[in-house]
């Protein structure tokens, strides 16, 4: 070891290469290893829109950004300390994101004439001074990989494929990490292809040793363990957390889980994950479209299952009519919307928060549903669980608004023990409770919740439908007064949920003060980081983050009125903003970013400073 590691609290690293270069796998391995080591971290994969976008072009770049550190980490970072650029396009698309004097590791064989052309570089950035302000490490990774494997029987294409392992090995050296986890992973993945396994392991080690033995460079980092709360951790992605949350809720409620869905980016992984868990009695149903998916759920819910469906904006749009039916039927139903850039097909692989108003109003008539949103990948577990709990216990459709950033991002999770999860008590009507009185489908309890009589229960036969129903009996009713009563009752039922959900708390900062940052969903991490820094710098700023968007926590009015100003950052054109202004009649300050990308902490900080100027 020729270099002295430089101690650092946080590192933001970005892997940028071609879609075929294995950047996502490399990034995930590096993340897992760091997590296992004891760092806190957050990741942000950023795919191209195409399956295989044209090789070598900027459009074809697949990126994986992560931040890890010995402190608590809330975002995958703003500016990068380290960039790994596998080819010219990777450099081009990411350079603006690297801090001055940042480290750039370059695979020189990705900068030949063809690559430069494809990336639309007029001159070679490795030579023309473009990188003058960075610490550049030029490595001919392809060549080194080929040489490592020169005795192998594999063809050139296959050996070339393992070059990402060289990078990974090299990074493990650079950050002084143990390779065991990745070795174990490779053994699992390539167990049945020993020659490929062997090649990958060799190249991984070669990368590590390359760092160890060459003398060409000097920057090496030491990122100590984070002092995270004690506990057992795993790494979790948002869609995975959502899927597991749904299963957990079904298990706690003692119900069969049904997931009816039609594939759509970025929601499909929930379907993929759930489909694997048939041994939990989970039934997944890939329907012919989103309307069939949600209506199949309505059938399953009528039959007594925990019925759930997931999609993204365009698919949610066509579920609207059926959601109205679910509102009318007063059955439990959970709809996950993993939001992406809109309108229309929009930016299918990019993140956005622009379906909040659709969640609230995307149906005919007065048809309220509950709306909740997770704030981070791991929080998707708890939010999905809570969505199910509310749906089941209050006999209402619940919409969960995740987004592409949460769905594909990952972070360490001190996961709970199943016995510590809240109980969920379905409102099932049993035959024995109706031996003396008739079952009246729309008779309600104090929470205005009706009882769920499931087919197969003798004596509780009844008919539901989408025509307005008479309260209590559930018969079709055209009575004018009953209609108004029912519209109000359905709304009141949702309002009453506010009585049992937690009060809104302040995440950071004082309870009263000058400026409140009020937000929902995935901007959480950026705001958290920003507010932490701002507080350190002495700014009077607080942060409240909403999980419940309908109904709002009952103290939200008090919370916002404790501040002179309210700043609402959203990845949309100001949708929560509409709700807050309408509800509390207070002026607000919008911070809207509609670029398919999450906020950076700096953007929040700048805005706050601008407000204080």
């Amino acid at each position: 070891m020729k270099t002295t590691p430089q101690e650092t609290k946080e590192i933001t690293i970005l892997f940028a290469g071609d879609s075929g270069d294995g950047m996502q796998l490399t990034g995930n391995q590096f993340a897992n290893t760091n997590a296992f080591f004891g760092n806190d971290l957050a990741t942000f994969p950023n795919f191209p829109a195409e399956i295989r976008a044209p090789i070598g072009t900027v459009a074809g770049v697949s990126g994986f950004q992560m931040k890890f550190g010995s402190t608590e980490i809330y975002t995958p970072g703003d500016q990068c300390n380290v960039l790994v650029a596998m080819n010219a396009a990777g450099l081009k698309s990411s350079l603006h994101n690297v801090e001055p004097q940042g480290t750039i590791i370059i695979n020189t064989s990705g900068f030949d004439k063809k690559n430069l052309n494809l990336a639309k570089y007029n001159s070679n950035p490795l030579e023309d001074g473009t990188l003058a302000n960075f610490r550049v490490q030029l490595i001919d990774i392809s060549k080194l990989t080929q040489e490592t494997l020169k005795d192998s029987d594999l063809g050139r294409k296959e050996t070339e494929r393992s070059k990402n392992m060289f990078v990974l090995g090299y990074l493990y050296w650079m950050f002084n990490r143990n390779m065991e986890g990745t070795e174990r992973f490779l053994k699992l993945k390539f167990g049945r292809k020993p020659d490929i396994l062997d090649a990958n392991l060799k190249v991984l080690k070669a990368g590590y040793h390359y760092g160890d033995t060459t003398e060409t460079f000097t920057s090496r980092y030491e990122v100590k363990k984070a002092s995270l709360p004690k506990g057992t951790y795993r790494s979790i992605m948002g869609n995975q957390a959502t899927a597991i949350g749904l299963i957990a809720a079904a298990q706690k409620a003692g119900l069969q889980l049904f997931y009816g869905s039609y594939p759509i980016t970025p929601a499909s992984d929930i379907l993929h994950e759930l489909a694997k868990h048939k041994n939990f009695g989970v039934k997944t149903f890939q329907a012919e479209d989103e309307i069939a998916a949600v209506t199949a759920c309505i059938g399953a819910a009528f039959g007594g299952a925990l019925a759930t469906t997931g999609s993204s904006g365009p698919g949610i749009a066509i579920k609207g009519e059926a959601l109205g039916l679910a509102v009318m039927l007063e059955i439990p139903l959970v709809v996950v919307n993993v939001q992406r850039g809109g309108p229309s097909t929009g930016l299918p692989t990019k993140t956005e928060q622009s379906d909040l108003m659709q969640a609230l109003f995307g149906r005919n008539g007065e048809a309220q549903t509950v709306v909740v949103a997770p704030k981070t990948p791991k929080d998707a577990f708890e939010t999905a669980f809570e969505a199910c709990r509310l749906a089941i216990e209050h006999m209402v459709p619940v919409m969960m608004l995740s987004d592409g950033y949460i769905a594909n991002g990952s972070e360490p999770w001190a996961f709970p023990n199943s016995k510590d999860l809240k109980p969920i008590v379905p409102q099932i009507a049993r035959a024995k409770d109706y031996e003396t009185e008739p079952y009246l489908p729309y008779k309600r309890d104090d929470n205005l919740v009706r009882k769920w009589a499931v087919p197969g229960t003798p004596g509780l036969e009844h008919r539901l439908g989408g025509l307005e129903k008479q309260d209590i009996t559930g018969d079709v009713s055209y009575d004018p007064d009953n209609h108004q009563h029912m519209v109000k009752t359905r709304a009141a039922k949702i309002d009453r949920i506010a009585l049992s959900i937690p009060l809104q708390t302040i995440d950071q900062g004082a309870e009263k003060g000058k400026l409140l940052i009020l937000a929902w969903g995935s901007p959480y991490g950026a705001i958290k980081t920003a507010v932490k820094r701002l507080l350190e710098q002495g700014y009077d700023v607080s942060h409240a983050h909403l999980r419940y968007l309908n109904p709002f926590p009952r103290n939200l009015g008090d919370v916002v009125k404790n501040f002179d100003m309210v700043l609402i950052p959203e990845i949309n054109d100001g949708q929560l903003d509409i709700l807050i202004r309408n509800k509390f009649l207070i002026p607000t300050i919008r911070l809207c970013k509609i670029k398919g990308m999450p906020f950076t902490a700096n953007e929040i900080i700048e805005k706050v400073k601008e407000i204080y100027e």
Partner: protein
Amino acid sequence: MSESTLTAKDFATDQDVRWCPGCGDYSILKQVQSVVAELGRKREDIIFISGIGCSSRFPYYMNTYGMHSIHGRATAIASGLKATRPELDVWIITGDGDSLSIGGNHLIHLLRRNFNVNILLFNNEIYGLTKGQYSPTSQQGKVTKSSPFGVLDHAFNPSAVALGADCSFYARTMDRDPRHLKEVLKRGNEHAGASLIEIYQNCNVFNDGAFFTFTDKETKGGSTLFVEQGQPMTFGENKEFGIKLDGFKPVVVKMNEGHSLNDLWIHDEQDYMKATLLSRMFDVPSEGSMPRPFGVFFSNDRGTYEKALEAQVVEATEALGIGNLDKLISGNHTWEIV
């Protein structure tokens, strides 16, 4: 209440039946109530699901579990129900607009998946509930509220659509022949798989007499062909006609002109091609045209979706063990912070 004592009356509800006086739906309701009473299933295990349309009010009149849902989606709703509750006896009530216009896609997907449900398609060749627009089964040229100069659309042939979607059971019957209707309903119910039963139903307000050629005493004999498994194809008031096959072409023959029953086309419900041939006997009735076939065209056992799904759950459980929630939550790769 023990199931063996149930009668048709036990399946009536306290709701006023709200179809127009004279509507064909009444007769169908009556036969269905009588059939379900005879099935020996418990009332609580029977579910009627409908979309929207006159016919779709049906569930309100059946004292079972039921849902009057939204337009075109009863088939999809039933799919979700059946996937999770395979043991239930699920009936779908739908109209020609509900199932073939807005709901066409869900119908064909249900058929290919072959959920074990009974689909009663009330075909009145009109939109009744919305007061008289043409439907996908309305005849070309027909003048309706939305086609004052005549319908331009070539009509769907429901039997052909169903066979094209690999349905496993298709039958045709009519509101005005209660005996046949009941028989066919029973056959559909016995079939383990999706049974599509198309019922010619008279809408006496907006499309009165659409099927009179097939239902009226005078014309019925010569214009209808009641097919029965293993039986030769004969028709006519006194069975005086028969149908022979000339290659792929059905030909009408007079029985008294030297043709014997043995020469005739023998009905075989298992034969997809012959069922297709039946589905193509779809002329607009006129002099010398082929009769319109009624009865079970096609019946084929090929495994239901819900059984396969159950089996997969069992298999997965055998392979992976009963799901352990804590293991699922923790995943395969954890670490301790101490």
